[in-house]
């Protein structure tokens, strides 16, 4: 079983390669020597107890935090780009999108303006001072909203939407620049079980269509088990296990450090 999983990962092209990543905050080692890879088109779950270093890893890949050591390379090994040292903006321009644990959208704007904003930025048209923004990239924005099922809500203020819909808006925004890799920080936090499944099913459909890889953190094990191609488990800043869902699920160290009996989640 594990052999099969290894085989399937090796056969994929590597999209993101994280090597020897380390970071400490004021003497506390939050992440120590983390290695993992995300394959092209893969949905990889990064799980572990609170404070295990998941968010720190995310923020280092995203460019928000600069690692003390290690490398993060994007693209297949022949011509990959080093992400360490780049700002979040540059990382985004290289094709790494992101969603946040608490959906981050532009609260004063309409749904479609949120998406138009991302499209304007992608087209490098932010410093246009004259032509009204509302007419620009409208068709493309509507297409994206249609894909996440929000075409009918396009002109509503985003502040009036239900939380599940806000999450979908964020997804549309994150997909606007056709990213190669999407980082999702606890995508289903604060959602009801059915909403979780719907959001992840939608995510999977969209990324498969677009050939986008996903790296996500998650505490809800039903989501991880149902949607992850592979799992990386962090504890105390180190990778303690990685592999297929089944393999990780049965790993005794993971049970002890993270799952417990698994009865309640």
């Amino acid at each position, binding site marked *: 079983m594990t052999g099969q999983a290894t085989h399937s990962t090796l056969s994929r092209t590597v999209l993101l390669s994280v090597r020897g990543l380390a970071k400490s905050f004021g003497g506390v080692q939050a992440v120590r020597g983390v290695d993992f890879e995300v394959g092209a088109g893969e949905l990889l779950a990064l799980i572990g107890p609170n404070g295990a270093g998941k968010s720190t890893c995310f923020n280092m890949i995203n460019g928000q935090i600069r690692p003390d050591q290690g490398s993060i390379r994007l693209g297949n090994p022949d011509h990959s780009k080093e992400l360490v040292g780049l700002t979040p903006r540059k990382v985004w321009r290289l094709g790494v999108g*992101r969603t946040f644990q608490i959906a981050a959208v532009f609260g*004063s704007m309409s749904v479609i303006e949120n998406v138009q904003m991302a499209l304007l*930025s992608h087209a490098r048209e*932010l410093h246009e*001072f*004259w032509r009204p923004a509302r007419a620009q990239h409208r068709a493309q924005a509507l297409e994206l909203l249609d894909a996440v099922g929000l075409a009918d809500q396009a002109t509503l203020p985003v*502040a009036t939407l239900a939380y599940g819909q806000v999450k979908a808006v964020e997804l549309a925004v994150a997909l606007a620049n056709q990213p190669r890799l999407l980082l999702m920080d606890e995508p289903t936090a604060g959602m009801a079980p059915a909403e979780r499944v719907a959001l992840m099913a939608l995510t999977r459909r969209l990324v498969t269509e677009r050939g986008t890889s996903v790296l996500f953190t998650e505490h809800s094990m039903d989501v991880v088990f149902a949607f992850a191609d592979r799992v990386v488990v962090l504890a105390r800043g180190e990778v303690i296990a990685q592999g297929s869902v089944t393999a990780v699920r049965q790993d005794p160290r993971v049970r002890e450090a993270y799952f417990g009996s698994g009865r309640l989640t």
Partner: protein
Amino acid sequence: MTLASLLVQLLGGLAGASTLFLTSAGLSLIFGVTRVVNFAHGSLFMVGVYTAWTAGQWLRPILPGSAGGFWLAVLLSTVVVAALGALLEVLILRRIYRAPELFQLLATFAVALVLRDGCLWLWGPEDLLGPRVPGLTGAIPVLGMPFPRYDAALIAIGPLVLGLLHLVLTRTRFGILVRAATQDREMVSALGVAESRLFTSVFAIGAGLAGLAGALQLPREPANLGLDLPAISDAFVVVVVGGLGSLPGAFLAALLISLVKAACIALGTVELGGFSFAFPRLTLVAEFLVMAIVLVMRPYGLMGRAAAAPRSLATTLPAENAAGAPGRWPWGLLVVGLILLPWLAAGSPYTTVVLVDVFCFSLFAMSLFFIMGPGGMHSFGHAAYFGLGAYGAAIVLKASGWPMLWALLLGPLGGFAGALIFGWFSVRLSGVYLAMLTLAFSQIVWSIIYQWDDLTGGSNGLTGLWPAPWLSAQVPGATANAAYYLLTLICVAIAVLVLRRVLDAPFGLALRAGRDSPQRAESIGINVHAVQWAAFCVAGTAAGLAGVLYAFSKGSISPDLVHVGRSIDGLVMVLLGGVEALAGPLIGAAAFTLLQDTAGRSFDYWRAATGVVMLLIVLVFPQGLAGLFRMRRRPSTT
């Protein structure tokens, strides 16, 4: 300059650092727990100076010639000011803890206005000379130079109070509660701590420290009505440099700033390569330079930590309001009406004179709104750009002798240049820090203008700035200033339209994006700082144009144009009109200018009157004017 004189200067600096620290520690404590930046803190300091004087007068016949009388007076004024602080907390601040940050600042600024006129009423306009302190008169020799005995005593008081405060904060339950409330006051309350009592006592202690500082300052400086603003701006700088809420930080910052100032005086005028530089002139701006440098290197001050997400006044702009152009018709009609006005109002020539003021301040308020509403950056020094525009035009006219039209075109570049420099620093900060940095920059501009006699005319300002002859000519059948009135109207109308248009363009959308969620904006490739910086420049240019138009309408300018009071006027205008509607700043500016013009001129206590009106506005609408300033809430509330 000898080593001894340098040492004596530096020791004098240390003495000054003590009172500066006491004032700042009070401000810092109050801010930490109540999250209110108390603009009236300088006024409490001033009240401390005055009450110490009065207490001294009372006690002198009872305890003649004894040091005890002085220290008793110090103690008394500390207690009186603490009680005043408690009273202010119960009557006013308690009602606005949940209001937006900017409202709180306005309320405490209003209190400062009332307290200032209160002092005027109680103690009169004359300076009151403080006593010499029995037992601490005379000087002690330091390397042969005299150093005042009293200053030596002051040097010891600062560290003493710091140590005492530290003990209280770490060793007592009250101190633990204060530290807990500094982080999360709602949670403290939910754990059963009576927050109202905690807040009142913290406010009283903070006010008491200001009163103590004031009383201790009396032997060094006479009581006068000009003490409040310098005291508050010094304390702000110290607290911001030290890091909001950090007492050791405030102590360090007070030392640093006082020593830098003392060093500037000690250095005197230095000749370097044929160029002479007067360091003492730097004292007026030294603290602001220190602050600018510290904040750029450590955005949260020497010992500060990133504050919890600052509550922003930048509320949701209704989407349709920003996108569409509602009510184009009424505005068009209004402009046509205003164009015809010089002929319609030929009988009352003053009308068009006041309206020129209204137009200038409308543009000023609109430019402030531009960075404050959609940009979410609360500038407390917007008058700097107004003043730089006015002075820019005046200098072009006076120094180069170019025609007035060139001055009109080039003047706004003064505002642009200021915004280009100050904006670069300011956008790196947010919330209170940004507000204070902008305030500091406007103070720097003020002191440069005040001191650079050759170029700016110093405190006298510049006169003889009249519009070109064709703009001063009498238009048949219209009011006297009709031509200039029309020029102003057209310039302002065009500038306001341009600002609106920019807000609807991708740039305006990006500006709002950076305000709504900097995190999201950065993660879709928006360079938030660059966008905000550009917005500063646009706003600075517009404010500069307003300043130019204002200067030519008055014929003369003075450093008052850049005074912090004018920046506050701008904020009041924007808040009065409402930050949610684009028309708000225009309406607010008109209302405020007309009000000040009619009521403000003939009344001695007009400051207090303005203050009371501001307080009424804030207290009657604690959540903002008629819900115009709805607090931003996250879309999800379970």
